[in-house]
């Protein structure tokens, strides 16, 4: 059977249109018009190729093993070098050209060790206005292995949080040693000899039992036999702030 010419021409036109559309869709127009995938691959590649600015402790250790070991034995064991010395990838790439920061100013230490009530209990903090104002910390403390240069003479060096609370309370004039027995060893190696804590109502009763002759506690005496039932005093009264928060 012979195909009529007009049908054949029509077929050619349709074939050309179909071919053009397919060409347009799969060859000419970029895939990124139809799918997010190429953009995402490109973005991931771009992110991965970004330059590193903090080299990491492992890189520092390769040359500064001595400092690393010194730090590793001390209380700053877990602190990365670049916490204090700043981003140092440029120094790792070319040790001569870029020198990391040497933090020798007082502020460099107070960033972490200045007193702030929101810091966790037990974190060593000092009141910058009372603790050797104007002096550099590194004069007395070796930053890689920080220990007090001599045994602290009072408790506030480490227990600033409690000291600040107590200072505002009615117990402001009560010395720590009235309630806690602190061994000398505690000043040298704190966790090896923990101070005692009051263990009975009678410890508070020394001042606060009825008939106490302590003039400062005269208005706050209770009958130990009746007051508070079987609870110990510090179940309700925080000894460092006995009047409670307002």
């Amino acid at each position, binding site marked *: 059977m012979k195909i009529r010419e007009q049908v054949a021409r029509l077929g050619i036109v349709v074939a050309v249109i179909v071919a053009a559309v397919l060409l347009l869709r799969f060859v*000419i127009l970029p895939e990124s018009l139809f799918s997010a995938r190429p*953009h995402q691959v490109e973005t991931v590649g771009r992110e991965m*190729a970004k330059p590193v600015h*903090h080299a*990491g402790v492992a890189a520092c250790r390769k040359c500064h093993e001595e400092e690393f070991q010194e730090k590793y034995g001390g209380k700053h064991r877990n602190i990365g070098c670049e916490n204090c010395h700043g981003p140092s990838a440029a120094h790792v790439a070319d040790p001569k050209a870029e020198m990391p920061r040497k933090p020798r100013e007082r*502020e460099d230490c107070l960033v*972490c060790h*200045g007193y*702030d009530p929101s810091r966790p209990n037990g974190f060593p903090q000092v009141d*910058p206005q009372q603790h050797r104002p104007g002096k550099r910390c590194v004069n007395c403390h070796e930053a890689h292995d920080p220990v007090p240069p001599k045994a602290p003479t009072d408790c506030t060096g480490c227990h600033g949080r409690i000291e600040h609370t107590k200072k505002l309370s009615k117990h402001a004039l009560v010395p720590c040693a009235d309630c806690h027995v602190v061994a000398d060893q505690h000043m040298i190696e704190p966790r090896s000899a923990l101070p005692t804590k009051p263990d009975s109502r009678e410890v508070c009763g020394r001042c606060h039992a009825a008939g106490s002759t302590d003039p400062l506690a005269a208005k706050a005496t209770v009958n130990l036999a009746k007051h508070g039932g079987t609870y110990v005093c510090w179940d309700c009264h925080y000894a460092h702030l006995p009047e409670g928060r307002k």
Partner: protein
Amino acid sequence: MNKREFLRQVVAFLPAAGLLRMLPGTAEARELVGAPPGDYDPTKHWYGMGIDTAKCIGCNRCVEACKAENNVPDEPFYFRTWIERYDIRADGETTVECISTRETRPEQAEPEDPSVVRTFFVPKLCNQCAHPPCVQVCPVGATFQTQDGVVLVDEKRCIGCRYCIQACPYGARYLNPVTRTADKCTFCYHRITRGLLPACVEVCPTQARIFGDLKGQADRLVRFQRVNNISVLKPDLNTEPKVLYAQLDGEVR
């Protein structure tokens, strides 16, 4: 030129245009080769971060490190990570203050407020949600989740419409004033794919931040998950954050 010639030239031109298109493609491929580890397999990882709020001392070193590592503008209102101070008062009132906006810490102790019952710091950053609302709302598909669970922004595709900034329940995104595109924490994607820690984790002095791989067999983050009481921020939104908080106070939003 008559009609016949014109059609012939068009037919000859079309495949050539297809060839032309391949040229920038090879340039992109070259850029990808520059990316560090060729054997990095994103399907083997599912990254997350653990934050122990009881350890944070609010020193802001993480914020400084993040800004240095990721070229975040220096102005104190552009952050990929930041620290909030929560003050909870006896009457139940809670005040939240972003302490990272301060220029420097003064040479004096923070004043004690006797009405405050509890006070603590909470580091915040992009939660890298498993179901990120910011990805859903992007009208041009510029933000997406990678196979290792990190939400990234394509800064070439982003049109800066700020819709994702509104959609993020954690306020973790900002509009970068230099590129005029949305920007956010990437878990330091360029570092973690090289086997390094994110900059904030690298410098954290108290190990309040733990970075890890939730697909890892023996991983710090998996251990962190096991030994701590874990909460996430706004769990009711079902975003399934991968930033896990330990010892988190109930007041933190």
